[in-house]
Structures are given as structure tokens and as C-alpha cells.
């Protein structure tokens, strides 16, 4: 039994010494200035032209996707959408620094990471149109993507639940000797949930190789972060858990990439969690159900538009001579068309057969679900017009 002597290890003061917010200074890593030029003394990440190009294209891809899908929602073609504009650097830059074997557990605004992993336009569409090609079998609202093949955990709406789960997943990776880590994304709002506390503390105590990546984008729906917490952001909490922590400019893709690379290296080699706080801004509405004019000013939004992460990276890429304007224009145009075409296709695909209403509740439907399903089929056969999406395709059993 190792004796505990925490008291013996502690420094002593003989007068009241108040520790407060100002006690620590947590600066933010920034490599690119808002105009896209690198700080002269910046630690440059080791990023190939190929990777830079993939990042660049993914950021643009996501912008196009967001724009089109917000439009599709307005047209009533899908019920819901959630854009990520302003945060492309955070999610794409971090995903780019990972291995494809690393598990990604996201909140919902990380389509950038998913696209970087290789999720295809038709996959996005099948999910959003809840059709039978959706791997979720049409069971979740739009944007709740998930793909086992890409090591991207299916998104669930309840906030922060993925945080302790990420600790557990990473623990399993470590025990299996996988040489892979888990990255867990969440918003600064979700970080108020009890699950955040549980997850970070457990990951630290149980030495889990996981990156906790907080997108501090200033808002949780209408609630500004000033009404969400009083500390110095989320980074200051890392200290409390004894977790190594990096704060980064979330609108600077090079900084995000470098910080995540470093974090991954630490997590994997030291078997421990690392917390990254990306300082960014949700340029879009919270979702298509939201209208931000009720809670923030155009001026504020404008200030942040000037820090646009996509433009900033584009300027840097240009300065490197890594952009072919013509090809880029073509890429954008082609993406637009691809999205429109895939949308048209996906919305014509049927939903799953009725059996999938009861499948996957358990590994096999137990007696009571079998009974309920067969009663339901009988009922649908009685009123086929009332259940047009499934009535025509009921298997006889």
C-alpha cells in the first residue's frame, strides 16, 4: 500500500492567499494572422502541400454543402439542418492531424471532420433524407451522421453524453493495444453538463488516450458564453483535472493542425487525455430553427466575418502559390452540382421497410416486438392509404 501524503506535498502560506481567474494566463496559439500571413516567429506545422490542399478543399466543400442544405431546408425538402460556417478550421484542421484509425466522437457541428474522413455527398444526403440507404435506417433527424467504416461514431442529440463515452472508448483502445486514440468534440455550452466533468476527470484518472476538443464558439443557441461560465474559457478547467491543455485560435487552421498533432502525440505516447480549446465563432444561426438577430448584433457578426477561417487559409495558400484559381472555381461549381444531384436522388429513395421499425432495438426482436410488428402489419394492410410510405412493401410472414 502506497501511503498518501497529499498534505505533505503542498506548499504553505501563512496569510490568506486567494486564487482567482487572473492567477493563470492561458494564451492562444496563433500561427496565421487574420490576413493569412504567418507570424514571423511562429512554430510552423509540418504540413505537406497535399494535406494543405485536402484541408482547403474540405473547408470549401463544407461551405457549399451548408449553403445548399440551408436552402433545401427553406424549400421544405429536409426538416432540419445545422451549418458550421466560421468553424471550418477547427473541425477540418483537427481531423487532418489524426490517423484514420482514431475514433471521432462529435457533437453535431463537425461535418468538416466527417468530410475530411471521406464521407461522400450521397452519404450526407441519404442520412438527411432518412431513406433506406441511410446507415441509421432513417431513425434520426438530419445531420446525425455516423459511419463505422470511417471510425466516426453516430451522433446523438443529448449533449455531452459522448464525453465520458470517449474516455471509455479510448480506454478500450489502450487495453487492446490499438495505437489509436479518440477525439471528442463538444461545444462550450455542452461543457456545462455534468457529463463533461465526469468524462474529463475519469479520462485523467484512468489514463485514457483521448483528445477533448472544445469548440468555444461563443454561443449555445442564444446563450452567450458570458452566461455559460465565468472562468477563463474551457481551457482553465483542464488545469483542475490535471489534464494537459492547449488553447488555440480556432479560426487558424495551421494552429489547430499543429495543436492537434501535438495533442495526439502526447495522448498516444503518454496514455493520457489532452484538452484543446479552440476559440472561434458560430457565424451561422444555431440551426435552421434559429434566428440569431434576436440575441446578437450584426456588428458582432461582422467582426468575426473578418476573421473568416476559410479566407485566412486561402490567403496563406495563395501566398504559397498552392492554389490554382481555375481548378478551384471548377471544384466549387462541381461540388454544387454534385450536392444538387445527390439531393435529387436521395429524396426519391424509399424509407426502410416497416420491419426496421422494430429491428435493432435488441440484437433480435423479442416476442413482444414480434407481436407488435405483426399487429402493425395487419393494421397497415387494412388502411394502406394512411401509411403510404410502407404499405406497398409489407413482407408477408
Amino acid at each position: 500500500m502506497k501511503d498518501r501524503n497529499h498534505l505533505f506535498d503542498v506548499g504553505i502560506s501563512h496569510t490568506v492567499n486567494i486564487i482567482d481567474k487572473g492567477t493563470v494566463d492561458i494564451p492562444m496559439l496563433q500561427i496565421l494572422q487574420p490576413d493569412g500571413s504567418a507570424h514571423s516567429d511562429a512554430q510552423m506545422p509540418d504540413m505537406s502541400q497535399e494535406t494543405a490542399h485536402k484541408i482547403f478543399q474540405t473547408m470549401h466543400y463544407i461551405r457549399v454543402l451548408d449553403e445548399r442544405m440551408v436552402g433545401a431546408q427553406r424549400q421544405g425538402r429536409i426538416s432540419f439542418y445545422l451549418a458550421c460556417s466560421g468553424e471550418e478550421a477547427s473541425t477540418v484542421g483537427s481531423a487532418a492531424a489524426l490517423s484514420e484509425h482514431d475514433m471521432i466522437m462529435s457533437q453535431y457541428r463537425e461535418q468538416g471532420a466527417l468530410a475530411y474522413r471521406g464521407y461522400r455527398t450521397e452519404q450526407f444526403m441519404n442520412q438527411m433524407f432518412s431513406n433506406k440507404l441511410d446507415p441509421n435506417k432513417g431513425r434520426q433527424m438530419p445531420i446525425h451522421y455516423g459511419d463505422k467504416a470511417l471510425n466516426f461514431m453516430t451522433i446523438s442529440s443529448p449533449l455531452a453524453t459522448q464525453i465520458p463515452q470517449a474516455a471509455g472508448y479510448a480506454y478500450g483502445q489502450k487495453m487492446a493495444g490499438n495505437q489509436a486514440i479518440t477525439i471528442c468534440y463538444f461545444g462550450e455550452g455542452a461543457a456545462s453538463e455534468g457529463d463533461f466533468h465526469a468524462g474529463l476527470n475519469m479520462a485523467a484518472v484512468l489514463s485514457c488516450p483521448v483528445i477533448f476538443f472544445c469548440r468555444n464558439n461563443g454561443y449555445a443557441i442564444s446563450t452567450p458564453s458570458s452566461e455559460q461560465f465565468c472562468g477563463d474559457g474551457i481551457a482553465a478547467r483542464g488545469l483542475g483535472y490535471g489534464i494537459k491543455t492547449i488553447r488555440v485560435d480556432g479560426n487558424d487552421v495551421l494552429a489547430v493542425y499543429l495543436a492537434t498533432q501535438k495533442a495526439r502525440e502526447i495522448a498516444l505516447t503518454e496514455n493520457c487525455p489532452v484538452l484543446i480549446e479552440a476559440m472561434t465563432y458560430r457565424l451561422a444561426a444555431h440551426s435552421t430553427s434559429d434566428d440569431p438577430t434576436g440575441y446578437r448584433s450584426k456588428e458582432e457578426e461582422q467582426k468575426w466575418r473578418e476573421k473568416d477561417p476559410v479566407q485566412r487559409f486561402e490567403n496563406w495558400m495563395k501566398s504559397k502559390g498552392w492554389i490554382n484559381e481555375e481548378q478551384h472555381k471548377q471544384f466549387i461549381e462541381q461540388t454544387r452540382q454534385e450536392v444538387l444531384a445527390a439531393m435529387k436522388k436521395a429524396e426519391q429513395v424509399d424509407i426502410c421497410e416497416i420491419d426496421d421499425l422494430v429491428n435493432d432495438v435488441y440484437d433480435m426482436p423479442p416476442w413482444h416486438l414480434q407481436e407488435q410488428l405483426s399487429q402493425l402489419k395487419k393494421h397497415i394492410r387494412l388502411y394502406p392509404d394512411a401509411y403510404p410510405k410502407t404499405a406497398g412493401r409489407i413482407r408477408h410472414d
Partner: protein
Amino acid sequence: MIKMNMLQAINDALVTAMNDDEKVMVFGEDVGHFGGVFRATSNLQQKFGKGRCFNTPLTEQGIIGFANGLASQGSVPVAEIQFGDYIFPAFDQIINETAKFRYRSGGQFTCGTLTIRTPYGGGIAGGLYHSQSPEAFFAHIPGMKVVIPRNPYQAKGLLLASIRDDNPVLFMEPKRLYRASVGEVPEEDYELPLGKADVVKEGEHITLLAWGAQVDVIEKAAEMAEKDGISCEIIDLRSILPWDAHTVSESVKKTGRLIINHEAPQTGGFASEISATVQERCFLYLESPITRVCGLDTPYPLAHEKEYMPDHLKTYEAIKRCVNY
């Protein structure tokens, strides 16, 4: 009387309660300046100040924990949980704290002034996490009251009664009625009784029982059945805990038949409690089995929402089965 939708009636009840008692405080995620994601708390912060209507950090267990403490201090908290699906992080604070506060302290301290408001239920393409109907979980918690309105008139009267009742009340709002249900609402202050069912329509051959948005559904089924000459008695339960077993039993003694309809999954749903109790009280009067028309025993689906729901057609078929038993 003014025409209001259910959201306006709720907002009106909150304004009335806050005007009446300065100890009433309203809070939750986004309820402050913004007025809540459904706008049920619109303008309350503007009217009553940030001290009495405010945003909280995003933590349901914290919201209810905070509300419990505030209630035990003597204030009158009205806490909002943004969606019924997100009430579960607060489940411990509700079952182990809110509901047991008075009992465990021998009546020294209570959370009796607390009201928790939350939108619930399906029919809005919300999928697994914006559609659940969790009333049965709370019906198994001695110490709680659970109340559900079916229209704007009830929403105002029952919410005011809930806020003023000296017991913790979970006030569940059928969100698909928020804008869809419009009706006359008195401008003045009034309360409707908790624990009392509402006989919506008298009938002879069968009793149909539901609450919240499903009352419309059983009414629709009853209309179909009436065409077949089947006379239906329609009851809106209104309070899930304590519930009005007396009114329901009297009705069943008269009709001899009972159908209970709810959106939540059937197994362990509140229909089972009603069935078990009515069967005990009306055993010799029953002419056919008490029948449940409920959600399937699956998570709430999206693409198959229509098929999942206990709709008027399923209810109508059940009526025929009962009457022809």
C-alpha cells in the same frame, strides 16, 4: 376571453403568476432575453428583470438542483427543461431530492413550491430525441405531481394551479399543440384543479381515455365509431399523478369497456397502471379486456413515425374489437 395558442396561454400564466407573487422566478436554458426556444417565456426578462427570469448554464441536473435549493429556501421556481427528452440528467435530483425533500425531513424542508415545465411528445418529425413522452417514469415517484394540459384554456389554468400548489409539479406541455391548439382563454387569473380528470364527452358503450395531444386522437376515433352506432365516453386524464381513478372507474362501471391511448411505449407505460387499477375496481363490470393503444416498444422513430403512433385508426380498430368482444 381572448384567442390564444397554447404558448401564449403558458406565457400569460407565467406573467400572471409573476405579477401575483414576486417570489416566482423563471429560468432554464435560453429562457432569458431570448424567451426560450419555443418562446414560452417571451418578454418575461424584459418585464420582471434579470433577477427573476434568466438563462442558466446548459446543465439540466444543475437547473433542477438549483431549483430544489431555491424552492427549499421559500422562493417559487418555475424551471424549464428545454425538451422532455433532456430531463433525464436531472432524474436523480427529481426522484431522490425534489420528491423526497419533505418526507425525509419530516416536513421541515420542502420543494413544494417547485414547478418544472417541459415540452414533450411526438408528431413533429423529431426522431428519438425530440419526441419522447416520459410521464410514466414520473408517475412512479411518490411525492411528485404530474400534470398535462390539452388546450390553451387548460394550459393557463393548470399551470397557475401547479405553480401555487404546495407540492412539486412536473408540468408537461404537448409540444405539437404549442401553435396548433388555439382557443378562448380568460384574461383573468384562474386555476383548474389538479388530480381531476375532465369528462370531455359522455357516452354509453365504451370509455376512451387519453391526455395531452392524444385527446384529439381519441376524439377522432370516437367520431368514426359513432358512425357505427358506438357511443364513446371521452375522458382527458389531465393529471397523471395523483390521478383520478374515481372518475375513470365510474365511467367504466357505466360503459363496461375501456381503451387507454398514449404515445409512450406500451410496456411500463402509464396505461398499465390505469388498466391494473381499473381492473381491480371494476372487475365485475368489464365486458371486454381493458385495451391499450400505445406507442411501440421501440425508441421513438423518425421515418416510421406515422406507423409508430397510436393514431385514430388504431384506436378505432381497438374500439371495434372491444365492442365486438
